């Protein structure tokens, strides 16, 4: 903790890189943390871009809703001081890529607006992802932002996305697509520029899945900077006190007079056990861990100052 907090926001304990990939399975609070970190980064005077991948089915974006919009624009739109939001769109990526190749935007537009081509790009695997990839690449090229935070879709899909450039490069080793892919890889594989953060919860299955995700990302050469353990309940107990509670619970179940309170104590101890186990398992992976407390407001009502990410 920084003692000199009266001079402004203390430095972010999390070492954000220029490109930050927020990953994690569904329901772990990834989006909330992405928004929190983006806001914290902007408050510290960094030009920050908060980006997400479009949801083609046209649902409102949960991330954008947290800033009072239905969706972010496909060009960066101002959200707060120093903070812009962006929706990565497959169509925009494909269009801009074709433009750079064909050099005639009217022709590009005609091709992309052709119904048959639309269906093809929509239905054939990989073309959508390629569009997202190129849309992101255009932002990376511009160097307009000091910090980019990308809220990525749930686990499996992102690993697919991360694997994509490598697979495509095998299929298309030369030419303009290959050049673009290589350029993108150059950014994303560089640990000086990029950090992937794995968001997880102090529960058995989410921890297992986050470790698998971390391994999958590392296999794809994406630099994983650490785990963000979210919704960590405050633990006021010392080790001795926990032992005392455990012993008490054991004695209780023996004389069976505990009733609902005895059962509740078991629940308390199970919650503590899950917390310790989650920490220990993540620590064994050899990466730094940060923790964030549980918050009970939805994103749009959240007071960001309340939410503190701490080094574990």
């Amino acid at each position, binding site marked *: 903790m920084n003692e000199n907090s009266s001079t402004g926001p203390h430095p972010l304990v999390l070492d954000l890189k220029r490109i930050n990939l927020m990953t994690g399975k*569904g329901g772990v*609070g990834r989006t909330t943390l992405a928004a929190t970190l983006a806001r914290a980064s902007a408050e510290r005077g960094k030009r920050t871009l908060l980006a997400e991948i479009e949801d083609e089915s046209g649902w409102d974006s*949960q991330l954008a809703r947290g800033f009072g919009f239905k969706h972010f624009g496909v060009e960066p739109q101002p959200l707060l001081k120093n903070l812009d939001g962006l929706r990565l769109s497959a169509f925009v990526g494909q269009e801009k890529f074709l433009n750079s190749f064909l050099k005639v935007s009217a022709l590009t537009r005609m091709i992309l607006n052709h119904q048959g081509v639309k269906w093809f790009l929509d239905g054939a695997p990989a073309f959508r992802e390629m569009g997202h990839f190129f849309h992101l690449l255009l932002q990376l090229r511009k160097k307009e932002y000091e910090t980019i935070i990308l809220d990525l879709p*749930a686990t499996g899909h992102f690993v697919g996305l991360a694997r994509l450039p490598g697979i495509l490069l095998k299929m298309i080793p030369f030419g303009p697509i290959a050049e673009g892919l290589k350029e993108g890889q150059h950014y994303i594989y560089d640990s000086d520029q990029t950090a992937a953060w794995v968001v997880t919860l102090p529960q058995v299955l989410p921890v297992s899945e986050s470790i698998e995700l971390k391994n999958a990302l590392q296999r794809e050469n994406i630099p994983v900077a650490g785990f963000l353990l979210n919704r960590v309940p405050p633990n006021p*107990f010392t080790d001795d006190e926990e032992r005392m509670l455990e012993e008490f619970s054991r004695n209780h179940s023996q004389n069976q007079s505990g009733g609902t309170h005895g059962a509740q104590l078991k629940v308390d101890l199970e919650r503590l056990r899950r917390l310790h186990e989650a920490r220990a398992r993540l620590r064994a992976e050899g990466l730094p861990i940060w923790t964030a407390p549980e918050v009970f407001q939805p994103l749009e009502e959240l007071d960001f100052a309340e939410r503190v990410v701490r080094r574990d």
Partner: protein
Amino acid sequence: MVCGGGGVGKTTVAASLGVAATRFRKRVLVVTIDPSKRLAEAFGFTQSALETGGEPLKLSDEVKHKLGVADGAELSVGILNPKYVLDQILDQVLTDEQRDRLKRTTLYSQMSQMVYGLQEYTAYEWVTRMLKDGAYDFIVLDTPPAAHAKDFFNVPEKVKHLMESRVFQIFMPKKRSWARAIVGQTVGQALSFSWLEKLLGAKIYNESRTFFEIFSVMRGRILERCEWLARFFTQSEVAVVAVGTPESSAQFELEGVTDFLKQKGIPLQGVILNQVERIPPAAETSNTPLEGLPPELIAKLKRFRENQLQRAERAFQVVERCRRRYATEGGADFLTLPMSYASEGFDILKENADRIV
């Protein structure tokens, strides 16, 4: 069909529904098209054991006993293996010569790795076969998380469009008249081979032609299957159950899923709210059961329980809101499943199954 957002314990709910169903039906199958390992683990299998065969496996008597599966009932579990299903389709539809040529293309060997594009397409073939086989009385299908579940329901339409797409026909050498059918001559030229060849390179371009040419043989079959499936979801034998938790992001996704189903005209049979936190008893009124513990420890315990209490209070409000929205007003069945603190996975399924029954 079980659908819902990510992280709501959808797979656990699907597995629990399967266990519960054995009390009423003899041959029950739980299948997932989600590549997560949860379903295999929930039933004590390794992922690879289920995936390599590509066919569902029956649970052992030992596991059935632990789960409380009814006597005389069979419970099988399967995980989609897209490559296995794809190869099966190819075997049925293509000649040996076509199949070998297709398998030699780079595109084929890479496509099976790009699981996400292929998964939904193959999932349909697989599920359809299970249905037509008639080997099961009751099937629980665990769909991918929310956004992908929508992709899943949209697959018949999407694949149909793709198959009918004229761009697809560029790669079919016999149909030379495609250019006339396209909007105008300019677009025709833009889509001509030299453009693609330049963009993709000669090797991949030629392989793509082979790939699409052979793939197009399967068009008829895929189109027919899609039309059948588009009607499938609205049949009376199909019940769609949406799963959520009291968590606000899960609520957001649950609303999205149910709205989407309504839009598609797919009836919603039920809503299950999972991981509903119970209200813990207040520590200060528990002097008798906590007798013997130092007062400051009891005070700390109270503070520790506050977090659970907050979750429980919020859950209570959400449960009431959902009950009103989905059951009272929406006419769907409504059920809550408690947050489980059982340390053994089988116990969670068993507890859930009892409650579902």
